[in-house]
């Protein structure tokens, strides 16, 4: 593609209104839409407002809608567009316009403030933490997020429903939550927050977010659906329901797991795993039979190699991993409600586990949970 003139229709205006302005701009071989916008800015429209930083698809600043499609301008090559037609560039629609292509994305930054932060078990001075690559792989996928907010922009829950922004955090924050929830060393349970305050239930998995993600993160399949499963496990698990009914569990999930709750037993276990403190008194399960299941734990300490004998790796894992391939409630029951959802897509498989241990552990785990709740 040699250098030639192309037609650009750019939305210009502010919160009080605006219009499309048509420009003729030169485009050159190998260029992306942002190059043409920059040339336009340098030669014809010095005050054209546009955000950009890295120009290499790493910072997520230059999000816009190009011919109606939410894209990063720096990663949209001219050669992928029909240059016989005008190229239309508009700001992201879901956010209020500041000026021209710049929108007010403060909604996202407000949501970020509400996220209960990473709460690890024990400090890491001297580099004590141990995690296996396969256990961090799936979270690293979520950490690829460049916060371009295209997923937020395209999500129909907020795209045409300003009012939902009060009660719906959006796909970017669902992967943030998933990343925290699946972190091997995190001790907080954010499921109630996620469901009640962040509107996970409002997502009806149309996968629009996944389709526009420039990083190719499987937002729906790897984050939203597993998180929905976890929340459902918590809310509708018959064992939990029964426990609540007969009064051996605290009344509502919310009371147990409100945001910023100080870590309780799970932290103690994880600390024990790190060798920082003895395991909590009176909760020692029998090795290889009774995994210490805690809903906030999700089998997380299983990834710490320095576990004391009271936290058998295979047994703890087994509670969670056995459920996935089996796909049945059996596994969920076996782990109380902590394990069944722990390993969706984690790369763990049944072969990691002594199936017998898992099966044997099932009932004992349930009893352990009930007893502990009672205390």
């Amino acid at each position, binding site marked *: 593609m040699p250098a030639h003139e192309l037609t650009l229709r750019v939305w210009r205006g502010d919160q009080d209104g605006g219009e499309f302005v048509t420009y003729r701009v030169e485009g050159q071989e*190998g260029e992306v839409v942002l190059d043409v916008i920059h040339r336009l800015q340098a030669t014809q429209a010095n*005050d054209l407002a546009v955000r950009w930083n*890295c120009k290499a*698809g*790493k910072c997520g600043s230059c999000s816009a809608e190009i011919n109606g499609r939410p894209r990063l301008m720096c990663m949209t090559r001219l050669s992928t567009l029909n240059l016989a037609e005008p190229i239309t560039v508009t700001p992201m629609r879901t956010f209020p316009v500041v000026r021209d292509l710049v929108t007010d994305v403060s909604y996202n930054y407000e949501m970020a403030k509400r*996220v209960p932060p990473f709460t*690890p078990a024990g400090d890491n*001075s001297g*580099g004590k933490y141990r995690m296996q690559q396969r256990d961090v792989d799936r979270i690293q996928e979520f950490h690829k997020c460049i916060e371009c907010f295209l997923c937020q922009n395209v999500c129909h829950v907020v795209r045409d429903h300003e009012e939902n922004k009060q009660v719906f955090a959006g796909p970017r924050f669902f992967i943030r939550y998933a990343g925290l929830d699946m972190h091997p060393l*995190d001790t907080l349970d954010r499921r109630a927050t996620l469901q009640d305050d962040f509107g996970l239930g409002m997502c009806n998995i149309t996968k629009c977010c996944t389709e526009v993600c420039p990083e190719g993160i499987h937002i729906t399949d790897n984050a939203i659906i597993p998180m929905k499963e976890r929340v459902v496990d918590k809310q509708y698990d018959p064992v939990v329901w029964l426990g609540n009914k007969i009064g051996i569990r605290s009344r509502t999930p919310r009371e147990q797991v409100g945001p910023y709750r100080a870590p309780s037993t799970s932290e103690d276990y994880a600390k024990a795993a790190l060798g920082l403190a003895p395991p909590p008194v009176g909760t020692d399960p029998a090795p290889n039979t009774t995994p210490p299941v805690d809903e906030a734990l999700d089998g997380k300490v299983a990834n710490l190699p320095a576990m004391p004998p009271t936290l058998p790796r295979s047994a703890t894992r087994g509670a969670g991993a056995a459920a996935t391939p089996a796909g049945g409630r059996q596994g969920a029951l076996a782990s109380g409600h902590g394990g069944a959802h722990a390993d969706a897509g984690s790369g763990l498989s049944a072969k990691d586990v002594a199936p017998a241990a898992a099966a044997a552990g099932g009932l004992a785990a349930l009893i352990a949970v009930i007893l502990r709740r009672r205390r």
Partner: protein
Amino acid sequence: MAEFETHDYDVVVVGAGGAGLRAAIAAHESGAKTAVVCKSLLGKAHTVMAEGGIAASMGNVWPEDNWQVHFRDTMRGGKMLNNWRMAQLHAQEAPERVWELEEWGALFDRTKDGKISQRDFGGHRYARLAHVGDRTGLEMIRTLQHKTVALGVDVFMECTITRLLKDGDGIAGAFGYWRESGRFIAFRAPSVVLATGGIGKSFRVTSNSWEYTGDGHALALAAGASLINMEFVQFHPTGMVWPPSVRGILVTESVRGEGGVLRNSEGRRFMFDYIPEYFKEETADNEAEADRWYDDHINNRRPPELLPRDEVARAINSEIKAGRGTPHGGVYLDIASRRPAEDILRRLPSMYHQFKELADVDITKEPMEIGPTCHYVMGGVEVDADTQESIVPGLFAAGEVAGGMHGSNRLGGNSLGDLLVFGKRAGEYAAQRAATHGAPQLEGRQVEAAATEALLPFQRERGENPYTLQYDLQAAMQELVGIIRTESELRSALKEIVALKERAKNLAVEGNRQFNPGWNLALDLRSMLTVSECIAMAALERQESRGGHTRDDFPTADEHWGKINLVLTQTNNGDLQLDRKPLPEMPDDLKQLFEEH
């Protein structure tokens, strides 16, 4: 009288990259009321572009590693011009800073036994870089960003500082404007931490973003602080060269760390022809040994592709000049023939993505075309090694904007460690100063002057287009103060800069103050012109070649120059003044580290 809002803080941090956020966290945790002010949205700072990793001698891969070896590598990489104390502190404290990130939620790639994995990089004796694929900077900035938000530190996003304010000799605060509205804002604070990054946008071909206009360097000078080592600019050996629109975008050194090699158009691994005397003892002189090294660092010497960046960039430059370059004026960087596709995709995912999307090149099948790109400035604000305080009381600097740590050339991976180690120190000492100093006085006259000068571009009916001026400055710097320098060209550059400064007095912008990039650039250009002049002046003065400063007319390092720092200050009438200052003397116990090897 101009209208402006005023905010009171103990510590104001300018910049929200790795150093700025780490400083803010430290200041907050030390009990100071802290604000972060940044030109872009939070999380978009240039740190996000860092790819390779954080150098820290944790010894997870090679237990032989320790801070002394890291210190030695850093000093040798900087050709011994580094501030020895900063290099020492950095080497000693980097591991704790990395572990701390992990405690805040960062997820580094792992070794088989579950520790943080470490990768090889140029100039580092052992595999030392904690990394996350090739997007370490993103992980780092996200972790610091989340921590900052969780602590409740106030962040002023898309807010540009144009002047520092003084109360007598000390710092009183900072003045700037909101980009969104164009309205003015003043901060009153007894401590200001500059963490504004570098100066790359003064060059035509650069890996740096629009923000890298040397704001902190210029703000510091204008406030009475001094800059050192400004002649040392790092040209990263591997930037993209094609298509033209992506020229300069960084190709991580990890490609070479993971086994990639450089070849010229004749297919020759030319780096074997460019091993300098200084690094002969530790560099393999044949392909067989170089290839064995990846698995056995103890019995083999490092491949020459992993020489420090200045050496590799110069070699590539020479090959291209000798006519052995690629069709688009670069050389080949080949990982495709060296590693299985699966490994490349796992270890270098964003490089794969970048080349596939922007250049139609599949790096698992074909070599990349690369060439040097302006990447980093070693020079910066002269600070106390331990506290990061400049000669202006209350003014601190950390990260790329501070000078001294890297000497004449920075090793890859030492930047991210620098941000963390000295960001923390700057934040703590800034908080400490704030605790012992009351709220300073803001002088109306200074604020008024800052507001008036910021609005000047709107006063002119017809004048110079700021984009044109920026383009001309970049062309001059690229052409005359680039990777290879010579006296006549440097003199031309200085003349050119004087002319550009005159033209800058006639900059005019259209539109209003609301999110107006033309106006924003007009103001940033002042900083760009100042740092460009600093670089050219210091480059002309230093009559030797060392690290990121290569003089065609003085091609070798000079022992005498090796003991001298060049220091720049600004006189009252705005002129720059250049002085020579002896290098701080390294204590004997550290000197010994260089004799043992």
